[in-house]
């Protein structure tokens, strides 16, 4: 059963494009990554699903109901973490969570306590005194507080330290085990890879592709930076698209089996090597340059 189904979503802010012809669906219990550079339309899509902004065209069904018409009813089962978390600064963490809980007809005091312990949040602290990371944690807690069936997370890890990111991912996996469906937007490919089973790639307001994790792994792209004698580097110029070439150093965008790369580099006398995630834009260019040329 599709928990979320979006067909032909279009949203413009005046003449400025938000999203155009966005369509995808989420299956029950899956973690779906929604990836794209800043300004690609991820937040617009999430806010349309929540009914916070009104689409110009298209249809959004959540649990089979219309996202706009049935917004109030659907909101009982949706948890949302915005990309930038802002709350009423003068309130304490506990008071804000009590306020959040008051919108739901359930006793959430135990859940509040558990989540705050998990996220190491001090209930007595004023929101104005919280660091960015702690505000993010508060956003996570208030989004999960009412045990939603669908979680919409917009850039959830920005501001969280690596330890807390790991803890948060574990929390999401726990939620998934309980049947929660998660839509997780990010502009960091590696982050989405860690968690998601399927990934939608959005660029300039349009869905470019939807891939399973396995498909994405096949197109594994890395930026490889090497420093060595020029003679050695010349022999490696077929590794991939060269981004930077100067005497004694090269940067490649490598796509393919990582073991093949390691085999090629082993035994060579390198001065330095780094293998890292390329920028998202670079990945897009790498993935879709050929496709555009074919058109």
């Amino acid at each position, binding site marked *: 059963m599709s928990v979320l189904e979006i067909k032909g979503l279009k949203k413009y802010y005046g003449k400025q494009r938000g999203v155009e012809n966005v369509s995808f669906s989420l299956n029950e219990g899956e973690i779906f990554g929604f990836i794209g550079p800043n300004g690609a339309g991820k937040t617009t899509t999430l806010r349309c699903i929540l009914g916070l902004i009104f689409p110009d065209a298209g249809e959004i069904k959540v649990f089979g109901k219309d996202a706009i018409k049935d917004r109030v009813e659907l909101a009982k089962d949706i948890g949302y973490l915005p990309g930038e978390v802002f709350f009423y600064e003068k309130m304490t963490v506990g008071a804000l969570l009590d306020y959040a809980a008051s919108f*739901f007809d359930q006793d959430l005091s135990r859940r509040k306590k558990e989540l705050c312990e998990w996220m190491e949040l001090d209930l007595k602290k004023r929101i104005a005194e919280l660091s960015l990371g702690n505000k993010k944690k508060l956003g996570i807690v208030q989004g999960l507080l009412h045990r939603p069936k669908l979680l919409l997370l917009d850039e959830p890890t920005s501001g969280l330290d690596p330890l807390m990111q790991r803890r948060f991912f574990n929390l999401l996996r726990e939620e998934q085990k309980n049947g929660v469906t998660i839509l997780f937007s990010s502009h960091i490919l590696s982050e989405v890879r860690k968690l998601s089973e399927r990934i939608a790639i959005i660029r300039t307001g349009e869905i470019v592709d939807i891939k399973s994790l396995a498909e994405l792994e096949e197109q594994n792209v890395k930026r490889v930076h090497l420093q060595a004698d020029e003679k050695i580097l010349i022999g490696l110029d077929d590794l991939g698209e060269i981004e930077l070439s100067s005497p004694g150093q090269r940067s490649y965008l490598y796509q393919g089996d990582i073991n093949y790369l390691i085999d090629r580099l082993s035994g060579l006398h390198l001065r330095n090597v780094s293998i890292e995630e390329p920028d998202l834009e670079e990945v897009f260019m790498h993935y879709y340059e050929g496709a555009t040329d074919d058109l």
Partner: protein
Amino acid sequence: MIFRMELRFSWKSYLTWIFSILIFLGLFMAVYPAFEKESETFRAVVENIPAALLQGFGVDLNTIFSPLGFLSYLYGIIQLLLGLSGFLFGLRLIGREKIYRSMSFLFAKPVAWTKIFLEKMAVGLIAVLATNSSIYLLWLLFRQMMKLDGAGIEQMLATGLILQLFMLILGSFFAVVVKRLENPIGLASGVTMSLYIIHIIGRVTELKFLHQFSPFYYVDPVRQLSEGWSIRDNAILFGGALLLLGIAFVGYVKRDKEEI
């Protein structure tokens, strides 16, 4: 819950406004007996002030030494405070999520936006009623203490209620149409003072048509004293308030909840 939370957010501010207005009114009313006693001295001083300036500030030499005349002059200034506070109440209530950029928090909750708007406005209405009731109670106290003739005072005080209500709704209207609300006090002061100055310009110059654009004209206590209480003027202001309320409501419910 929204109602209770809004009250929790704002009660200190409301009390501060109410006490400030009461202290202002109380201090001036307390000096009235001395003012009345020394009326001839004051008259000599005031007569040296240019007539246009006196007119601008709503000073009528024929009436200002009577209790009602003195109070009407004083109430003109109180109305400015009522207008400013009313606008600020409305702006902060309806625009709170813009001020704190917390739209994603409240509007994503399972609650109808209509309900949010109505509960917030109900808090504003209570603040307006509390302010004006307090002023009325203080007036009753003074009337008792000073044995003043209170004919026409109730009607004058009622205009303050209508004005503050209008400004509450105008503030909520601005909260809906203005995209960013970074400085509510600045916006409230700017709009209220502009409307007040428009009224004064209309009062002292030939540009009488300007009056129509200021709510202060419709409730001007000095004008009421000379021309009598006008149902028409109050009805215009009340009608304007209802129209603005309707527009603000539709805007609040129908506009995108964008985080800017």
